[in-house]
C-alpha cells in the first residue's frame, strides 16, 4: 500500500520530466551534432538487430498462420493475413519492444552511469545544459528513428513472410506484394506509423528519466537500465491500446 503514493509521485516526476523536455528540450540552440550522433547510434546501429528479428518474425508468423488458414481453405489469403498483421500490429509493437530492450536499457545505463560518475554535473558546470545535450537529443532521436526502423522492419518482415509462403507453396514476389498491398489501406498504415513516434518517444523519455534520476552506485545504474526497459515496454502496450481505440473512434479501423 505504501507503494501507491510512491507510484503516483513517480508518475508526477515522469510527467514533469516530459514537460521539461517540451519546455527546455525543444528550445533553440539545438545540439544538432549530438542529435545526429544519437540518431546514428539509436537508428542505424539498431537496424541489424531489428532487421533480423523482423525477418524471423515474418517467417515464423507465416508458418504459424498457415495451418489455420489451410484448415479454413483460404491458404491463398496467407499474404493478406500476414501483411495486415505485420503492418498493423506486430511490426510496430515487436520493433518497439526490441527497441525498448536495446535503446531503453542503453540510454538508462549510459545516463545512469553518467549521473553516478558526476558527468552530468560536470556538463552542467561546463555551461552545457545536460538536459538539452543528453536528454533532448536522445528522446528526439528515439522518436524520429523508431518509425523508420519500424517501416524497414515491416519491409524485412514481409520479405520474411514471402520466404515463409514459399516454403510450402510457390508464389511470385509480384503476386505476393500485390496481394499484400491490395489488402492494405491508409487506415492500416498511417496509424501504425504514427503510433511508432509515440513508442519511440516513450522509450526515449523513460530511458532518460530513469538514467537521469539514477541513484548512486553500480546497482543504481543497473536498476535504471532494468526499470527503463520494463516501464518502456509497458508504456508501449498502453500506447498501443490507446492508439487502437483512437483509430477506432476516428473510424480508421
Amino acid at each position, binding site marked *: 500500500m505504501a507503494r501507491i503514493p510512491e507510484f503516483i509521485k513517480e508518475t508526477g516526476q515522469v510527467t514533469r520530466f516530459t514537460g521539461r523536455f517540451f519546455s527546455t528540450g525543444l528550445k533553440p540552440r539545438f545540439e544538432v551534432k549530438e542529435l545526429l550522433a544519437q540518431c546514428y547510434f539509436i537508428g542505424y546501429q539498431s537496424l541489424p538487430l531489428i532487421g533480423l528479428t523482423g525477418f524471423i518474425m515474418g517467417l515464423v508468423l507465416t508458418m504459424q498462420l498457415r495451418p489455420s488458414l489451410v484448415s479454413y481453405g483460404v491458404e491463398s489469403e496467407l499474404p493478406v493475413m500476414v501483411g495486415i498483421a505485420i503492418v498493423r500490429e506486430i511490426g510496430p509493437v515487436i520493433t518497439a519492444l526490441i527497441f525498448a530492450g536495446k535503446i531503453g536499457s542503453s540510454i538508462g545505463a549510459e545516463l545512469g552511469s553518467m549521473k553516478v*560518475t558526476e558527468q552530468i*554535473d*560536470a556538463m552542467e*558546470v*561546463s555551461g*552545457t*545544459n545536460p538536459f538539452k545535450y543528453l536528454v533532448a537529443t536522445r528522446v528526439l532521436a528515439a522518436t524520429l528513428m523508431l518509425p523508420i526502423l519500424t517501416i524497414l522492419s515491416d519491409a524485412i518482415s514481409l520479405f520474411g513472410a514471402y520466404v515463409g509462403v514459399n516454403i510450402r507453396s510457390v508464389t511470385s514476389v509480384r503476386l505476393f506484394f500485390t496481394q499484400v498491398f491490395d489488402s492494405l489501406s491508409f487506415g492500416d498504415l498511417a496509424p501504425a506509423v504514427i503510433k511508432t513516434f509515440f513508442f519511440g518517444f516513450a522509450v526515449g523519455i523513460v530511458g532518460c528519466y530513469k538514467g537521469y534520476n539514477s541513484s548512486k552506485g553500480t546497482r543504481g545504474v543497473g536498476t535504471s537500465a532494468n526499470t527503463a526497459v520494463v516501464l518502456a515496454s509497458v508504456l508501449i502496450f498502453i500506447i498501443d491500446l490507446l492508439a487502437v481505440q483512437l483509430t477506432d473512434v476516428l473510424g480508421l479501423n
Partner: protein
Amino acid sequence: MEISTGSSMSEKKIPEDRETVIEIEHLCKRFGENVVLNDFNLKVYRNENVVVLGKSGAGKSVLIKCVIGLLKPDSGTIRVLGKNVPELDHEDLDKIRTKIGFLFQGNALYDSMTVRENLEFSLRRQWIKLPQTEVDALVKEALGNVSLPHTADMMPAELSGGMLKRIALARTLILKPEIILYDEPTTGLDPVTAREIDNLIIALQKKYHTASIIISHDMNCVKNTADRVVLLLDGKCYAEGTYRELEEAADENIKQFFE
C-alpha cells in the same frame, strides 16, 4: 567564539585591497532532517587557495556544489564575482560558470569521448565560434599544463587514475577560470601522484592567479596547497587560519585532524 577569532586572524593577514571573489553568508542547506550546512560564512579572495577541512559527510562537497549552483541552498547568499548564485537564472548561471572551474572527485570525464573531445567539449559549450586552430592550441596548452600532451587521442578508460585527474584538471583549466573548486583532488591516489597533483594546483594558481576552494581531508595536500584552512564542523565554520595556526591550536576538535 572560534569563528570570530578565525575572521580576525584572516583580516589581519589579508590586505584591504584584495578582491573578494566568493562571499558566502549565512548559508543553510539541509537534506530532509539532516542539517548539513547551518549558517556557514566564508570569504575567498583572489589569488588564494582556501582549503575546507572536515569529516566525511560534513557537507564539504555540498558547500562547493552550492557555490557553482548544482545545489540550491535553503537560505543564505553566495556571491560569486558579485553575483548571488542561488538567484541567477539558467543563462546567467551558465555565464558565471564559465569563470568557475570544478574538479570532480571522480574526475567525471566523459568516458564516451577522447581526451581531446573532453577538453573541447567545455570550449564548444560556450557557443563561441572559435577557429579550429585556436581550439587545437588551447587543447595543447591545457594538456601541456598537466604535462600529458601525448594523451589527446586516447580514451579516458585507457588512462591511469593520476592521469585522469590531471586530464580532468586540464579540462577545468581550458576555459581559464577565475575560480577553481577542487573536490578532494588527491583522494584515491598514491602519495607520489598526490604530490604531483598538489604541485600542479600550486603551479596553476601561480600561473593563472586563480582563487580556489580545495576540499580535502588529506593533510599532506592541505599542508602543501593551503594559504588558509577552514575547518567545517557541524555545518559551521568552526575554525579558520593558516595550516600552522590550526596545527598548533589546542582545541580537541581541531587537533584530531592533525594527528
